[in-house]
């Protein structure tokens, strides 16, 4: 007795449903579940003798305030609208005010980042089109903008100054380790430092993002989503910047003036720094306008990479040709694993944890397993080379990263297999990925801090 065909009640329920549907935290199945509840309640109330209207009023009232309800749903399912940040603000008047202040803060920080990259020029380290870039810039690239990004998040989350002061520590330590070691020009460990420092520091930015509450899994996943979207926005802005740069060169050269000094010394470095802040703001502000891109790309490329790896394995088995271990091969396979981990991570971040195992999950498992096999083959080849030619900082760093990613993927494969056989919930896989995140930054920090002295700065 939960259908009210032909009664005005049915129309009221439909109205209620469309009203509830407008809440972004409530998805189709949730609305269906709540509607079932409403109908059960209505059936009981009308049976007890209430008229349709009375029963509807009572039932809706008992369901509770929809604002409060959708806020609860939002807290529980933050993956659905992390972007809207409706949890933090529901007063649209206050929101309008903060967004004006936010634009000022964002523009201010972006300008500060653009100026920061010009500071070394005061000490004689110039960026010129006809000279090589001083290695100082490579080593410190992340230090020009990450602290400002952290400040932006601390401001945005209205974190107390005192409680966030410890965040100065990682940045100060990074500045120290990037600059005190006596690297000879172009040494391997110097390049390793330049590559690993941003990864290590990204965790500090993450702490600012999640307001130092490092334990809640939802927050960390939000930061992962943020990072993916930031990367995509940044690439888009960089494409636009490339076009802008091209036109700058073209129109000035047409009147016989070479603007290369401006492009190389100001436009590109200042733009690259300021764009990080602007892109971060755009990710936060425009999420409601544009769908999340990282999960969409993940969906698109997971099948393609799975096919690529399988075909590669079959070809290798068929022809019997061994992997030709050159200098770049180890790094190449590291990057392959990074990509597969990213595909898994972003598939995880966008997945509804409550959905039952499906085709895409099986595909993910296939991708992970084939990546593990390919990497196993590559590692065997590389191990042979290392035992022949010994350790270098590059090889140790690449091997360490390979190992870290292998462990992650092996764990993911294990949990995916369990999930597909319905032995465990998807949440276990999500927890594994989230718990693993600090490992990347910690390893990067080890490379930055320990490798240069361990390998004699070579």
């Amino acid at each position, binding site marked *: 007795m*939960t259908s009210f065909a032909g009664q005005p009640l049915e129309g009221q329920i439909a109205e209620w449903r469309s009203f509830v549907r407008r809440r972004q935290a409530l998805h189709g199945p*949730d609305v269906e579940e709540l509607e*079932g509840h409403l109908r059960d309640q209505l059936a009981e109330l009308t049976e007890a003798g209430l008229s349709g209207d009375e029963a509807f009023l009572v039932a809706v009232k008992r369901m*509770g305030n929809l604002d*409060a309800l959708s806020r609860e749903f939002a*807290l529980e399912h933050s993956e659905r609208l992390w972007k809207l940040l409706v949890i933090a603000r529901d007063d649209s008047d206050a929101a309008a005010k903060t967004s004006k202040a936010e634009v000022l803060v964002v523009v201010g920080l972006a300008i500060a980042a653009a100026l920061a990259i010009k500071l070394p020029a005061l000490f004689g380290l110039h960026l010129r089109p006809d000279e090589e870039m001083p290695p100082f810039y490579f080593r410190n690239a992340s230090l020009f903008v990450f602290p400002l990004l952290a400040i932006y998040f601390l401001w945005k989350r209205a974190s107390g100054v005192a409680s966030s002061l410890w965040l100065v520590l990682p940045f100060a330590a990074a500045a120290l380790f990037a600059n005190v070691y006596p690297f000879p020009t172009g040494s391997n460990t110097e390049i390793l430092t330049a590559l690993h420092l941003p990864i290590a520091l990204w965790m500090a930015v993450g702490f600012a993002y999640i307001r130092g509450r490092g334990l809640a899994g939802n927050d960390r996943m939000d930061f992962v989503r943020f990072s993916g979207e930031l990367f995509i926005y940044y690439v888009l802005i960089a494409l636009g910047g490339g076009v802008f740069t091209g036109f700058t060169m073209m129109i000035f050269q047409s009147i016989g003036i070479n603007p290369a000094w401006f492009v190389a010394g100001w436009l590109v470095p200042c733009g690259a720094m300021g764009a990080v802040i602007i892109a971060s703001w755009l990710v936060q502000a425009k999420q409601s306008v544009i769908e999340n891109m990282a999960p969409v790309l993940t969906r698109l490329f997971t099948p393609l990479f799975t096919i690529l790896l399988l075909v590669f394995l079959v070809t290798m088995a068929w022809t019997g040709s061994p992997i030709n271990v050159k200098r770049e091969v180890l790094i190449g396979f590291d990057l392959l694993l990074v990509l597969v981990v990213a595909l898994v991570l972003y598939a995880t971040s966008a997945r509804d944890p*409550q959905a039952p195992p499906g085709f895409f999950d099986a595909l993910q498992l296939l991708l992970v397993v084939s990546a593990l096999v390919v990497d196993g083959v590559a590692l065997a080849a590389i191990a042979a080379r290392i035992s022949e030619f010994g350790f270098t900082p590059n090889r140790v760093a690449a091997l360490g990263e390979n190992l870290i990613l292998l462990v992650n993927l092996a764990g993911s494969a294990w949990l995916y297999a369990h999930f597909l056989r319905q032995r465990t919930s998807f949440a276990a896989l999500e927890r594994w990925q989230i718990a693993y995140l600090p490992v990347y930054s910690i390893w990067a920090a080890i490379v930055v801090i320990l490798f240069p002295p361990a390998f004699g700065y070579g």
Partner: protein
Amino acid sequence: MDVSKDLVAASATPLVLAILADGDSYGYAIIKRVADLSGGHLQWTDGMLYPVLHRLERHGHIAAKWSESEAGRKRRYYRITKEGRAQLAAQRKQWQVVDGALRGIWLKACPA
């Protein structure tokens, strides 16, 4: 007498787990059961049960699936998992500690 908001919130998890340990159920029936068990004193805002259920599901304490109700409507049924039972046992111990402590002092401080 209405039980305070905080107490309602705190008792929601053990109540839901215990009711599901007694047999699979769905949202509306769970709320009815809570009202019966408490003699109507534990008043939940009906909608608020569902975020609680979804959270328990995410933690793997309960599992859900859609089935047909006797009237032919789709309904989401919940059942307790092994982890859920362990969680229930842990919660029970905690509540017994609270209950025991309160009893001890109430007998002395304000004999009813």
